């Protein structure tokens, strides 16, 4: 118990608990998970808020992420520098959004960002193609990829602008009840 006191102050823990969906215990567990990625880099004392960032290579090697086809996108979206290098805060943020407790809208917002590979705030055909290739190991022919992407846009694009905006995406998510359980990483 004395150990806990030295990692975070009570205020820090309060802030973490108020701003994420984790309890104190989970926060500490996540901290240790984070630290285990690079024990020599991450200090055991976070009370003075050390400036530590773990590179994407380490984050992406976590068992929870290492087989996920979207791992790089996830890390990019949640990291501050947009390149997948993460501070502890980013790390907690990521798993908070991906936790069971996070509401649908929040999850949808980040899922949208993950699928939006070129960061243009719309999921356009090229984004869909990238997603599809990631999900099927490039085994579909070009025509098939094209057809699927067209079908997706046709189905989900409400305002007929040929690409999916956040609103379109959310609308679709609202109709896909599985999303809550699939956009979820158990930690």
């Amino acid at each position, binding site marked *: 118990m004395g150990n806990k006191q030295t990692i975070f102050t009570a205020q820090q823990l309060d802030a973490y608990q108020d701003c994420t969906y984790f309890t104190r215990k989970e926060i500490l567990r996540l901290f240790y998970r984070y630290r285990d990625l690079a024990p020599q880099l991450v200090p055991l004392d976070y*009370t*003075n808020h050390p400036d530590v960032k773990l590179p994407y290579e380490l984050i992406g090697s976590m068992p929870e992420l290492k087989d996920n086809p979207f791992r790089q996108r996830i890390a990019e979206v949640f990291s501050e520098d947009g390149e997948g290098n993460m501070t502890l805060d980013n790390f907690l943020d990521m798993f908070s959004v991906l936790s069971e407790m996070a509401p649908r809208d929040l999850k949808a917002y980040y*899922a949208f960002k993950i699928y939006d590979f070129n960061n243009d705030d719309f999921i356009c055909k090229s984004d869909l193609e990238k997603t599809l290739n990631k999900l099927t190991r490039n085994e579909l022919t070009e025509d*098939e990829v094209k057809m699927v992407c067209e079908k997706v846009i046709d189905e989900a694009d409400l305002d007929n602008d040929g690409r999916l905006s956040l609103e379109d995406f959310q609308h679709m998510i609202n109709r896909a009840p599985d999303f809550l359980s699939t956009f979820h990483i158990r930690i």
Partner: protein
Amino acid sequence: MTSYSNGGVFNPAYHDSETLEIDRRSSRKHQHTNPYARVDPAQWGHNVEPGDNGEWGAAGDGWTRRENVPMGLISTRLGSPPLQQNPNNTSQIDPDSQYDRLPPVQLHSSISGNMTMRWRGVTMRRMSMFPNADPAHAAFTEDAIKSEMENEEQNLIKELVALSTTEQIRKIRELPVSFEEKKHVRTQVTAFKSSGQYHHFTSLTDFSQNMSLSMRRFGYSIKSARQTLQLWQGIMKEIGGKFGSSVLNYFVLLKWLLLFNIFSFLVNFGFITIPLLVYDLSLNVSPNVSFRGLELLTGAGYFNYTIMYYGSYSNETIRGLLDYDMQLAYFFTISVYMVLCGLVLIFSMASSFKKNYALADPASNSAWQLLCSWDFSITNEKAVNQRKNNLRIQLKESLSEKAHRERQTTSEQLKQYGIYFGSWLLSTGLAAGCGASIFYLCHYEDERVEDTETWSALKEAETLLVPFVVSLMNMVIPLFFSLFNKFEQYSSQRKQIYALLFRNVLLRISILGVLCYYWMNTVPQKFTCWEPMVGQALYRLVIVDFIFLMLGSLFGEFLSNVIGTKIQPRLGVPEFDVARNVLEIIYAQTLAWIGIYFSPLLPVIQILKFFILFYLKKVSLTHNCQPPRRSGRAAQMKTIFIFLLFFPFFVGALSIVAYTSWRLTPSEQCGPFRGLNSTFSVTGEWIDHVNNNSSTHWVGWIYQNVIRSEIFYFLSTLIILVIIYIFWQLIQGRKQLIVLLRRQIINEGKDKSFLLEKLQNLQKSCPEVNKKHKKRTTHTSRRSAERSSGSQSNSNAMVQVLLARQQLEEEERRRASGVSVPSDISTSDAVTQAMLARQKAERQDENVYEITDGHPPSLDAVAQSLAARQRAEDRDEYWSTTHFNQSNPV
């Protein structure tokens, strides 16, 4: 931001800056590279930089030291008005007064509305406004973004402050921003809150805040403790990681049912068994009965005399400190448990329907498959590869499906319908045949069994025949159903699963129905003490079913794994059949529900059964099975399972228990209800007893006029029907509304593209103006867009872009023709000016087109408005810095 986190001393900007605020702001601009990072977190994290131990410590100071330095420390950095301190420290600005400088339109907004949406809406709009900002104007954009952010943030904080603490936390958590930003908002809100109240009741607010903080901490620790108590979390994670959510659903359901049984055991044991044990510990086993071991299977013999069954419970009132009427206790415990179960099922079913069915849209299949079906929880490489394969196959299938359907000829279709008809006929016939054979089997057994106190071991073993046959049927017949399913080609996988499920349910229902008929009609006439006999029969069914489940996973899954890997690789490793396995546990639970009246301790057996089953299935799954090839919509399947659990099975069990207690005469010789006409009449006697006591007369009245009166039920049914009708009509109305709204969205989309086209044409027509004033235009329009009615549709923003542009051009034209810009420019701030300009533009936007195609307008108007804005900003900065200095007279 982390580069600044070692405190101010190591911060290069700290040394460079005279006024921390302005310099810090500009020095950080270079960090703002990502268009998503709307807010430079560096600012937010460091609003408390003067504190000597970094932001955390200072934030802590904000909490504890707020009596001395309430807010000056906390947030001068952003110059955010809500938190500025008056120099004389007598303080507090009325929370609303800081907004006085802003035009009233600013407060239009949907303060009560969904602020997350609003915040995000603004974010998205902002992002789409500056998709790829021109580097030359980056500084300007930066500035614009910043000032807008400040406004937005202040609004947000103001809204948050108005909420209760729990709501606040919920909203803060829901903000789609990074942790740093959330923390900043949180600090601001806390600071603002304490500042707003501080003036009036110092100690009281302090106390209440401390209270709320400690309450919150207490709540968190309870949550933490609850998580520790959660059963099988690690196993669940492992299964979810390897097999995906649809298989996980089975285990979740199993765990849920286990909890049901644990609750039922606690209730029964606590209210029925313990009082009996306290009253009378001795077992009145007749001397010629001994424990043989076979009882564990049959539940007969020795067990018949234990508290396992209905027969051993007393009908007396236990006299002690309190009179404890065993009859009433037995009746009410069972009925309350059944009612509670029903309520829990109804609520979870309803919420599951609401979440998973009401909104589900079968039309968007590929969109769903591509964007929502990937299971992020899968962490196993093999599983990931398999999923990818499956997804590819599914996508291919869905592409070819359409073509396939079109190609079908009439004769093929007829053949298809023939197959459907045949397989439905066959499976219904099989189910009916099973029911009939069980019926004859029961009769056969009925003739052989006589009503004596002790049975020989052989006789006892013979009783296992019926449960054995029943379990065998339950195991073998579904295999036939799956076989039929292979021949039928349903157009969608879902139809196929539903057909399979329906047939299996039919089979189990018909078997259980026949058994119940036998228990309700034949057994009471034949045995003097009939309830324990039914209890025994149920016990045997539960046990034998358990044995068959174990054998099923051993032979079914293990053997086919061996065959699939060693002997016939063509067959492959078996899949885990979620539907079949779920039906098995639902059936097992139904047995326990029926048995609860006849054998109050049956839940113990059920708990053991489910507990072992959980581990068994887990081992069998991880060693023998592969993930299901087709990942159906797991959440919908889950809803279906809960529905099945409720509708035929729980309702069936409930009606059987109800029938027993209302209609059947309890045994004369044994059990708590001996000597009564029906179990339910126990309440009548109790009411009579209560009525003797005049002070509790109302209980009798309620009993007579509510419980036993037809009129009451008639009226309440009528009212409920009316309410249902009204709701149904409401739903119809909503459906129409949805259609209308959809149409509107499509129209808005068209509007948007039309306006965009117009804008592009305009830009083409006067490129030089665009180049010079693009940023200005965008900025103004964005500001006005912000003030727009909050509907946030993109097309609305586009209209604003056009309007603002027109306004600018209008201004330019006026300038050229000698009309002076209104004089209020120098006094009002930039915002008001923009508002006025917009209004002007709205008045005159008809003239615009003739202007644009004319001579290139002069630029003076723009220059002047820029100057005005500059002035306004200077004043702003002055304002914040002076305040900073005043509140910290160092």
